[in-house]
């Protein structure tokens, strides 16, 4: 198998994304800069080890932090499957006696309307400071299966691999407190980043997108670092 080392550089910041939601995001590089094209076909799997920070971020109302991998199925990215962990206000803060309240999730969107999104989640999530393996793959029967350390959380069969691409994200809605995962002393880490396309394994650690909650390019509170291995990246909120 031929291994191609992607050397995506940091490409700066754009500001058009936030129209639908006040989210602050940082995306790790993906195939074709996350844009599918007519020639794209057969992104069959994405894999990443994700290490949670030693202290989970504080989230407030309508805020959250998460890390996940994703495969999309159309140009407008309104069809996709994701798997990862999250600590969001919507669910985890409702788990008052569940300790950290973080949980694994598998989420699909099947059309881009407000009610076209479904999420499956575990009652538990990763411990702090621990690395887990997240994978999305086509099982050969048309299902995109999401797993955490090999345990299946969900699958979705309503889109085909043709034209799919992928992205990875850490986000924090409304930039509440320590909305981003990670701090300077304990960054959130992606490693072993790789995806599989047309029989080739690609490593793609380049951070190509950071935007703040209002669509700007302010990265004052957010830093990242990449080591020389090109399959590793870490993030931290500089306020913590």
């Amino acid at each position, binding site marked *: 198998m031929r291994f191609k080392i992607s050397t995506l550089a940091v490409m700066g910041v754009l500001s058009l994304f936030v129209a639908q939601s006040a989210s602050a995001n940082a995306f790790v590089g993906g195939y074709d800069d996350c844009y599918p094209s007519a020639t794209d076909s057969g992104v069959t799997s994405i894999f990443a080890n994700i290490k949670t920070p030693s202290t989970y971020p504080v989230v407030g109302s309508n805020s959250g932090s998460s890390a996940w991998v994703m495969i999309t199925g159309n140009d407008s990215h309104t069809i996709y499957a994701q798997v990862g962990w999250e600590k969001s206000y919507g669910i985890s803060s409702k788990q*008052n006696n569940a300790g950290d309240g973080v949980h694994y999730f598998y989420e699909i969107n099947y059309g881009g309307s407000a009610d076209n999104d479904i999420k499956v989640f575990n009652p538990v999530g990763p411990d702090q400071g621990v690395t887990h393996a997240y994978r999305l793959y086509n099982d050969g029967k048309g299902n995109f299966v999401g797993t955490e350390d090999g345990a299946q959380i969900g699958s*979705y069969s309503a889109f085909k691999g043709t034209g799919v691409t992928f992205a990875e994200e850490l986000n924090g809605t409304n930039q509440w407190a320590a909305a981003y995962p990670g701090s300077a002393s304990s960054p959130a880490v992606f490693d072993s980043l790789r995806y599989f396309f047309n029989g080739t394994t690609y490593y793609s650690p380049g951070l190509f997108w950071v935007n703040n909650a209002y669509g700007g390019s302010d990265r004052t509170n957010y830093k990242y670092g990449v080591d020389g291995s090109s399959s590793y990246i870490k993030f931290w909120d500089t306020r913590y």
Partner: protein
Amino acid sequence: MKKRYWFSALMAVVLTGIVTVQSGATPQTELNLTTLSKIHMRLDVPPGQAKMDKNAVLEQIKTKYADATSESKQVKIEYQLVTNPDFTAFTTSALEKNPELKAKGYMEKFPVYIVTFKGIHEEGHVPLNYKGQTPIHTEMSIVVDAQTGEELMGFSH
């Protein structure tokens, strides 16, 4: 004579129950079966009573998800048989307390309570350059083992 009548009546009830289950009768539910089918989850009519007390489970989940309880307009509980071959990421505790689940590894016509919080607000994770409407989840359901009371999984939409 009286004993024979009661025996016949009992058999009729039992047979009706068997036929109902085997005929794939539509379960009584307020959940959206079309939505559930997208994540390969199916409901069937349970054959009898659950082992766990319904009200106890409801209070257990309402207490655990206290914020959801206060935010929701309604909290409903249903007793169902669930089939979901897609979910195998159960907690160790859930597997240890239910040997059947541990052996099977997934839920197949598995007796559960489903507690649903209606009227919550939860946004989905949208990707880079997403061009749709912000996905809003207004219902969140927690699936609980009706034999042990262990929380198994959840879903929202």
